[in-house]
């Protein structure tokens, strides 16, 4: 199976292609990140914007899958980074990505409350912009496969919206973005047992949803 998403699956693909020792690069990144955090805590916006550039794609995709609305997702993402900059002095080391995604998750919950989300009325909102193909697009993928994958994304998105917000967040973080149970527990401020339970229930729920709408799935992806 081709892994075409970010997270642990994307990272694994990336690691195979790197020539530098992975650990050294990660250490270097870690040091740079710590320095950027330190500068941001002193009010340096340019340093903080480098962190924004590093994480905005992940944050935006989490928001997009949570809210199924590109405008709401953009608002939530912007709110996330504004809150993060305002509160970065409260970050005392640790996993910056988890810290940012926790803020992003809360921003999404706020958006859901204000939008009073309902089952999606139009799947058109979920169409990918054909002018901006994903980084993980397979060069060997045919246009038909690309279209099928977009259809798949829309149908799955509709299924995600039928989940309660907390289950949706866990499912997106685990199976769409590839985070481990421990990271998800840190992001959602819940126990490992809660993460496992929510993940199990949400996967089963989505599976039942897709089984009930097999005709919506491209033939290639039908369960």
């Amino acid at each position, binding site marked *: 199976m081709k892994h075409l998403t970010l997270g642990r699956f994307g990272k694994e693909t990336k690691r195979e292609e790197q020539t530098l020792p992975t650990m050294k690069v990660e250490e270097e990144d870690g040091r740079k990140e710590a320095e950027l955090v330190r500068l941001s805590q002193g009010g340096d*916006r340019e340093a903080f914007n480098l962190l924004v550039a590093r994480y905005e794609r992940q944050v935006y995709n989490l928001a997009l899958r949570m809210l199924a609305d590109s405008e709401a997702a953009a608002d939530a*993402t912007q709110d996330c980074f504004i809150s993060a900059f305002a509160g970065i002095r409260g970050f005392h080391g640790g996993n910056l990505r988890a810290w940012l995604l926790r803020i992003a998750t809360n921003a999404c919950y706020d958006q859901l409350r204000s939008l009073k989300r309902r089952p999606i009325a139009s799947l058109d909102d979920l169409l990918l912009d054909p002018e901006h193909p994903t980084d993980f697009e397979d060069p060997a993928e045919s246009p038909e496969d690309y279209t099928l994958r977009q259809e798949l994304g829309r149908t799955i998105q509709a299924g995600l919206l039928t989940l309660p917000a907390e289950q949706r967040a866990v499912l997106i973080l685990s199976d*769409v973005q590839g985070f481990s149970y421990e990271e998800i527990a840190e992001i959602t401020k819940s126990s490992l047992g809660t993460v496992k339970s929510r993940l199990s229930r949400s996967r089963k729920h989505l599976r039942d949803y897709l089984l009930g709408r097999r005709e919506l799935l491209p033939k290639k992806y039908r369960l």
Partner: protein
Amino acid sequence: MSRRDDCEKTREGFSSYIDNRLDVQEQQRLEHHLRTCPDCRSELESLRLTIGLLRRVPSVPPPKSFALPIATMPIRRIVLATRVFGLAAACAALLLVTVVGAETFVEWGRSTQSLGPMVAAPSRDADRGVVPAGTAVGQERQGNIMAAPAPALGAGAAQTEATPQATSGSRAAAAPGSPSATAGEAGSFGNAKQVAPGSPTLGQVAQTSKPLGVTQATPESNATDLSEQPTNSLSPWRVAEIGLGTIVLGLGLAWAVSRRRVRMN
């Protein structure tokens, strides 16, 4: 345990099993059950496919950069300034309300004191110190000139009867054609001693003059009035209210501008 219960218990572990998060004992038990249960194998497979589909959901590039704008002033300072302006405006507004309340209370107190033998309460203008000409002469009064309803009095005799006490002092000052007499003619219907022969009588003046109130006041009120500001000037209350109102407006505007800068940044 029935087969159905066994299946249910096994399926509860599918999610963790797929993620390799079961302990060894649990994993063995589950795999043992799968070997003998085609329904559970089918269930597990559909779950794996679902997870596989989720992993194929495409990643979308952000529609724009979410970098924060570089402000000319650190955002924290702007936020602090906003809070300071807001707090100062609130305090100034509270002070303004207090001043207005105090002025109202004082006004009410005065109006209560001036009731009784008086015909009318002192007007607001009187309290502001708008005193008609001739008030200085009123200082010499010691009685209520309106104590007895006075028909149109004659120029001489009625004056003496009305205010015997003040006669000596006033007569010395009140000579026809004197400045005080002129001032009395101008508008003070209470200065009977200054009324020259032929000039409007008390009754006539009372009918034509505005009820200024000062000359109708008690000596105590007169004393208070005379300590007031000169005619047509603002009272301290009014000055304070205008000043505080201006401050509240200015601080409110500054707060609104700061808040807008915070939002823009």
